[in-house]
């Protein structure tokens, strides 16, 4: 993958052929770039997490039915027909993967990072999650159980991280700014 020039030219050629046939507009690329840079991304999931931290009723709804609970945010982005939110606790750590392709809850987390889609993460995290998490800097206590969610169908998973101990008194927006993408995948703690 050191040289992606052949793929770049092939994509450009394919795009040109579809534009010629009237199947694609020349502006579509810029629209894609704008959508996933500006509107669809982990800032959406962060808002959901922050609200769950401050609003116990919302948190209960979110854990009971993630799809219904996030409907009020009206996110765009797709790939999130059914959302299940799983909560980290003192005794259980959750982490999400898709070993067969790269399923990911776009509406709340945007497009996945490269490592999430690469063979190393997909192959290893189901077999040796503690070792992989340690490489990410997450060192779990032996007695903390680890549950790896392999997204093999259309259900999409998001982790509800534990609220940082030093976040007392922050409002919802300030809390959202503390929530990282990696924490919502389960490869970071806050």
């Amino acid at each position: 993958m050191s040289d992606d020039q052949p793929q770049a030219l092939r994509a450009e050629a394919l795009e040109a052929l579809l534009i010629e046939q009237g199947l694609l507009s020349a502006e579509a690329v810029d629209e894609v770039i704008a959508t996933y840079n500006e509107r669809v991304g982990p800032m959406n999931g962060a808002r959901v997490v922050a609200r769950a931290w401050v609003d116990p009723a919302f948190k209960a709804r979110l854990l009971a039915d993630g799809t219904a609970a996030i409907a009020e945010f009206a996110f765009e982005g797709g790939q999130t027909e059914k959302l299940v939110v799983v909560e980290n606790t003192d005794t259980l750590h959750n982490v999400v993967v898709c070993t067969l392709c790269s399923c990911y809850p776009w509406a709340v987390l945007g497009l996945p990072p490269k490592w999430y889609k690469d063979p190393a993460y997909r192959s290893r995290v189901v077999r040796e999650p503690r070792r992989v998490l340690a490489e990410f800097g997450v060192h779990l206590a032996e007695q903390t159980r680890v549950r790896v969610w392999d997204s093999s169908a259309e259900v999409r998973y998001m982790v509800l991280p534990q609220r940082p101990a030093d976040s007392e008194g922050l409002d919802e927006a300030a809390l959202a700014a503390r929530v990282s993408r990696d924490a919502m995948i389960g490869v970071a703690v806050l």
Partner: protein
Amino acid sequence: MDGIHDLGGKHGFGAVIRETDEPVFHARWEARVFAVMRAASAAGVIRNADQFRHAIERIDPLAYLGHGYYGRWLGGIETLLREAGVVDVADLEAAIAARGGDPRAPAAARPDRQPAHIDYQPAAPGSRREGQASARFAPGARFAPGARVRTRATGTAGHTRLPAYARARCGTVIAVHGAWVFPDSNAHGAGENPQHLYTVEFSGRELWGDEAEPGTCVTLDLFEQYLQEVTP
């Protein structure tokens, strides 16, 4: 399909490499591929996500490992566009040459001469996913939370969402998700075959034996047809 894509539990891929300040798209061509995917969906060439995933599984295995995520998409989309007759490979190669590229550079696409899904018609417009499938699916779920189930032992040449690492394994149902379209048939235009979907939890030990990390488990979302009851 026992393909290169079925990576769960495989060894030899090294450390997880993270980028600092990673952009959403690393180059404009990645976004182009995304736009082409949308156009192919709108044109009816990509009929459903299952067919698209299977097209990606069918690309050249070397490209699968070497061309990255959008390179894999590119291979899958080109496969389907050529199978549908929307893009002719000679035109594509001419367009590559016109841009100064080598039209014979190894491509990821692997179109079938007689694609299995060419006659595919959705069973009903918009009936692809949960809501609609549930409505048309009368029988109750075969398994309830807490049920012990065993997965199918063998693979298939077609599309499936039961990874190799979880075959012939016993687990416990922890959630029931209602009826969903069955990817194994839907990917091939062989019907939506809606059926109940279960989240099944497998202990690390069940999956990986003595080498499993203690206190770990994996869940998978598995279709009813993959599962058998375990008699206690």
